[in-house]
């Protein structure tokens, strides 16, 4: 099989299509949500909406997530808290500060930035992969999680997992020729890009919206957590 031809497709046409589907899909989701509109609300506000939003972000996205005893998740399901946290940290470091990935951003955005040495990125991705396996097992054995996991949830895990492992194996030049793994990595990334707007992985964007909306509601009622 001519893997360089497959690679060309995966880095070229398919990536292009996947990227456009991703953009169109995310904008579509955003438009749908914004156009749901706000229900007219005649209750007088008891507190500051903006304050609520600020608090919600502090708690949900900036400081509190890193202080375990503030988070319910930490005590209720420590695996999700720890493995989930490590996974997200590893993922973002790898795709923002890995050299190969920075070059992708550079070609898309027109500017680049300094990157981390390969061994550091490498360890982080290894840890992120381990964390994903932890999350998978947790989902398998936790009775509540198991109950609410449909095919989409398992697919989410798989589709995020594939770029991670193929990237890791490629960097280590294991098992297959480099261009084979590069092709698989790119195909996995392309599939991920298309899958994101269709799935709950879109939380990377909507998370901030839901934080804002919850925060505003809490703030209005002066029950800011």
């Amino acid at each position, binding site marked *: *099989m*001519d893997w*360089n*031809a497959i*690679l*060309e497709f995966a*880095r*070229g*046409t398919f*990536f*292009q299509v996947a*990227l*456009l*589907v991703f*953009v*169109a*899909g*995310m*904008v*579509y*989701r*955003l*438009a*749908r949500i914004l*156009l*749901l509109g706000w*229900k*007219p*609300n*005649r*209750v007088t506000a008891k507190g500051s909406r903006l304050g609520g939003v600020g608090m919600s972000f502090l708690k949900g996205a900036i400081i509190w997530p890193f202080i375990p005893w503030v988070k319910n998740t930490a005590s209720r399901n420590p695996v999700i808290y720890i493995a989930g946290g490590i996974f997200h940290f590893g993922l973002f470091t790898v795709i923002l500060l890995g*050299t*190969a*990935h920075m*070059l*992708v951003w*550079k*070609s*898309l955005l027109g500017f680049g930035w300094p*990157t*981390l*040495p*390969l*061994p*550091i*990125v490498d360890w982080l991705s290894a840890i992120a992969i381990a964390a994903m396996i932890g999350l998978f097992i947790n989902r398998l054995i936790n009775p509540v999680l198991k109950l609410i996991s449909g095919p989409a949830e398992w697919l989410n895990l798989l589709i995020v997992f594939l770029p991670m492992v193929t990237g890791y194996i490629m960097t280590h030049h294991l098992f297959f020729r*480099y*261009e084979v793994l*590069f092709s698989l990595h790119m195909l996995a990334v392309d599939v991920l890009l298309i899958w994101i707007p269709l799935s709950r992985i879109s939380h990377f964007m909507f998370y901030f919206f839901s934080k804002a909306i919850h925060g505003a509601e809490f703030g209005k*009622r002066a029950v800011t957590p």
Partner: protein
Amino acid sequence: MTEPTIYQHLLDQGLSRREFLKLCGVLAGAMGLRCAAPVLASGLPAHLVNDNASAAEAVAQALESKPRLPVIWLEFQDCAGCSEALTRSQSPTLVDLVLNKISIEYHETLSAAAGFQIEENKQAIMKKYAGKYALVIEGAIPVADDGIYCTIGGRSSLDLLKEAAAGAAAIIATGNCATFGGLPKANPNPTGAKGVWEIITDKPVVNIPGCPAIPEVFTGVLAHFLVFGALPELDHLNRPKTFYAETIHDRCLRRPFYEAGKFANTFDDEGARQGWCLYKLGCKGPTTYNSCATIKWQAGLSFPVQSGHPCLGCSEPNFWDGGGFYQGQSAPVIRPALAGVGVAAIAGVVLGAGVAAANRAQKPRDAEKPVAAQQNSAAKE
């Protein structure tokens, strides 16, 4: 058979027995790669130098018993760069002996004769050595519009190729153009350029890609055919495995810096001066199969990556269309145009708004139902 053997032919050319045996050693080295004179000259570490005495004996035996191998060399959509590389290669003994003394019969750039005279000569050679000559092709073959975009003596290259291929014992395509279409085939490929093996499918075609092909690799393959009367073992792209089994990256002297994440960011920064990895400057070494990093160029003096330039991937199919030469290999091949992204975004908005409107139109009562009131009362509790 009255035809003189190669050995006799060489003696006629004034070679001594001693020189002949030396040549056999060089040839054996060229085929097995390790002991080639230029590689030796570059000061290859001792552990890489094989004892090829027995191989040289085999070569000597073959040359003593085999007749000359006539070679017909055709140029189509090319720049003669592969020929240039050969004639200027720094291993004169090898190239000179293989090409001049042993074989070349017809070569457009190198032959002294020209015009109808040489065309007639070619016809005569093809007839005389039918089924015995080796055919070397340099340059791509345009097939669009019946191949009119490249003609020689009023005949299309497509026609000439088919004619010459019919009587060839072996076909060797040299350089990226003849193997994979090279520059002529680059997008949008107006002439419909193709590599030889896409056209000649009833005979094995050895591909020796590169821009140009490494002279020692070319002579090595020719020598193999000369000595063993058979083609060397080929990979899935018909490249001889001996020379194309490893990537530039596999054997790159900058590899430790790659592993350590030390990259040159520009051609004249500290990293470049320190000899760090050229990945960020667009190096295609990780996916490029060729012998540059081992045989090197100019008598083993250096090769592009060693001298500070990223590998362009010149021995891979479609390397002209594989993204910018100076753009990191991970960067997308096609950089999405802002307009395209804009269109995608607008499509998303329109679709989203459309579906939202349709939903609203479909459930008019939903909007009137006191959902809001319900919610409000719930909120009060």
